[in-house]
């Protein structure tokens, strides 16, 4: 890859998302989400099904299906990904923003070898020759921790283990050296022992390259392992965000508290003792009026069912949206 001359990528500038909205027709799936991620840092967006976390990821990566509409800004340097069209957008793909999906088996072309799928990024995006691209693909496989990269490069997706497939996806995502990597639950389908390897690999590589990493997950344990900062999503909004230590040690929103405390309470509990459970289930489709969490919240008050609480500053870079907080400064 050393022979390929790269057009200079936008300098390390991280990602700033401002007031992002995603709509699928009438359905307002993401309702004004704002966050920023510094180069080399990891933001974990955590939430349950239907909370809007995957729509946020796809919107920033500009991979929403046809029929979905985006509003707001997603800035990498001077480039607004939401506004990008045509050639600008195509140039930005892979080089400014890359995407890693949950299901690597489905995301890899079943009839092409790992080498071909990695190499085409190098030849199309960086003008590498055939042999340069092939060698570059093998080098990338080695970079993502694969032991016999030449042999793995020749294999087809169905001949690889789940962990190796996800590493091939990572190699594809990193091939054009993006400034921002959006990882949409890439370890959810993997065995726990494999997951740990992928987590630390992605973290190490994005740090080394000063990439901004957005890691989408439903698993608070993964957040504890990988994040520098956390955004908790519920009902299409961010309900709390802050540095990872603050979120885990001083959570303010009742939903965050339940999420963060559940695994610790579980660790301390004896076999066959009941679990701490949040009643009800997360809203799907239509979000309730007011605070989206109020139907499941044990502290809910009158205003919770009427108005959406504003995002309140709770400390350095820490904010939460809950009516209880305005009553209790």
């Amino acid at each position: 890859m050393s022979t390929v001359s790269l057009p200079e990528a936008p300098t390390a500038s991280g990602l700033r998302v401002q007031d992002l909205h995603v709509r699928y027709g009438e359905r307002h799936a993401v309702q004004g989400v704002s966050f920023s991620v510094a180069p080399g840092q990891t933001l974990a967006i955590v939430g349950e099904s239907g909370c809007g976390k995957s729509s946020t990821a796809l919107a920033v990566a500009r991979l929403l299906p046809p029929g979905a509409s985006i509003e707001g800004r997603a800035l990498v340097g001077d480039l607004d990904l939401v506004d990008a069209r045509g050639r600008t957008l195509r140039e930005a793909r892979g080089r400014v923003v890359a995407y890693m999906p949950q299901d690597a088996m489905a995301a890899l072309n079943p009839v092409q070898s790992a080498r071909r799928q990695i190499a085409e990024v190098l030849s199309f995006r960086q003008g590498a020759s055939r042999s340069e691209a092939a060698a570059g693909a093998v080098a990338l496989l080695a970079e993502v921790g694969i032991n016999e990269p030449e042999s793995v490069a020749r294999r087809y997706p169905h001949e690889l283990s789940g962990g190796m497939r996800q590493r091939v996806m990572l190699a594809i995502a990193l091939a054009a050296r993006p400034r921002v990597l959006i990882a949409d639950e890439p370890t959810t389908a993997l065995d726990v022992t494999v997951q740990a390897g992928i987590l630390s690999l992605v973290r190490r590589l994005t740090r080394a390259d000063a990439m901004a990493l957005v890691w989408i997950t439903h698993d608070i344990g993964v957040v504890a392992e990988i994040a520098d900062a956390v955004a908790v999503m519920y009902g299409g909004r961010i309900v709390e965000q802050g540095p990872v230590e603050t979120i885990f040690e001083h959570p303010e929103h009742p939903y965050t508290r339940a999420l963060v405390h559940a695994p610790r309470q579980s660790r301390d509990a004896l076999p066959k003792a009941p679990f701490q459970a949040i009643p009800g289930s997360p809203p799907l489709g239509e979000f309730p009026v007011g605070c989206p969490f109020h139907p499941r919240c044990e502290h809910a008050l009158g205003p919770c069912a009427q108005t959406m609480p504003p995002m309140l500053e709770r400390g350095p870079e820490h904010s939460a949206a809950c009516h209880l907080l305005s009553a209790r400064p």
Partner: protein
Amino acid sequence: MARYLATRIGLGVLTVFGVVLLTFVLMFVVPGDPARTIAGPRATPQILALVRANLHLNQSVLAQLGHYLAGIVHGDLGVSYVQDQPVAQLIIDRLPATIELGLAGLALELILGGAFGVWDGIRPRRSRILAVVNVGLLSVPAFSLAFVLLLLFGYKLSLFPIDGGTGGTRIVLPALTLGLFGMPYYANVVRDAMQETLAAPYTRTAVAKGLPRRAVLRRHVLRNAFSPALTMAGLDFAILLSGVVFVETVFGWPGIGQLQTQAFYNVDRPVLMGTVVVAAVLVVVATLAIDLIRMAIDPRTRLETQ
């Protein structure tokens, strides 16, 4: 791989044997006395007996089947009752014409259907044109389609020979009939596969790589989208090879289909049997060929052979 091929060929031989057995039994249920067909209505009982002895008709069904199978192994399919020629020779004379028309028809089906399917598949919404063309073609009976083409291009425009001509253009109308007849099926299959492939996560991956749209289509979408059409083409080719009676009849195409029709009306048992056996062999060979092509295209199918 060698083991896979051996198994497939073994299975193919079994299939052909099964077909022979079944048609042999069917032939014996068909009413009519072949000896009388050959010797004519005024033959004496002595002549009839002689004919029967010659054709082994006086032996048991099992013995006759034995004779027939032994013949097949040596490439001998018997002698036509009516035309007084070896069946194998009759079929070999007509096989090239059938293969020619089959290939041309298949190519047109794939090209017309594929082009229409791809054109419609890359559009976000289903086009009305394809729907109208499809419904139109599907609702016209195949033989009237053939007559329409014949009238339009043969009589009115005089572009192509109507019947029995010998030039290279005489294949155009029968092949076009087959092509137009098969097109709607291919167009639908390709269009559905296109839309599925375009929505597939691996296509999203290709888009996320920043590849030009044409590269996304060419490298990732088309190959996967044509996979179901290929399976269909394999089955279709086998059917076309065994002769398409209506097209051969309308256009006077000297293929196996015609031979079969004549044999049917004449109760010419050896010819009927022969065409069925050859068709069975061709079907077996064509499906094997398609499976080998699939293996070359889709690595996942190679797994099952190991």
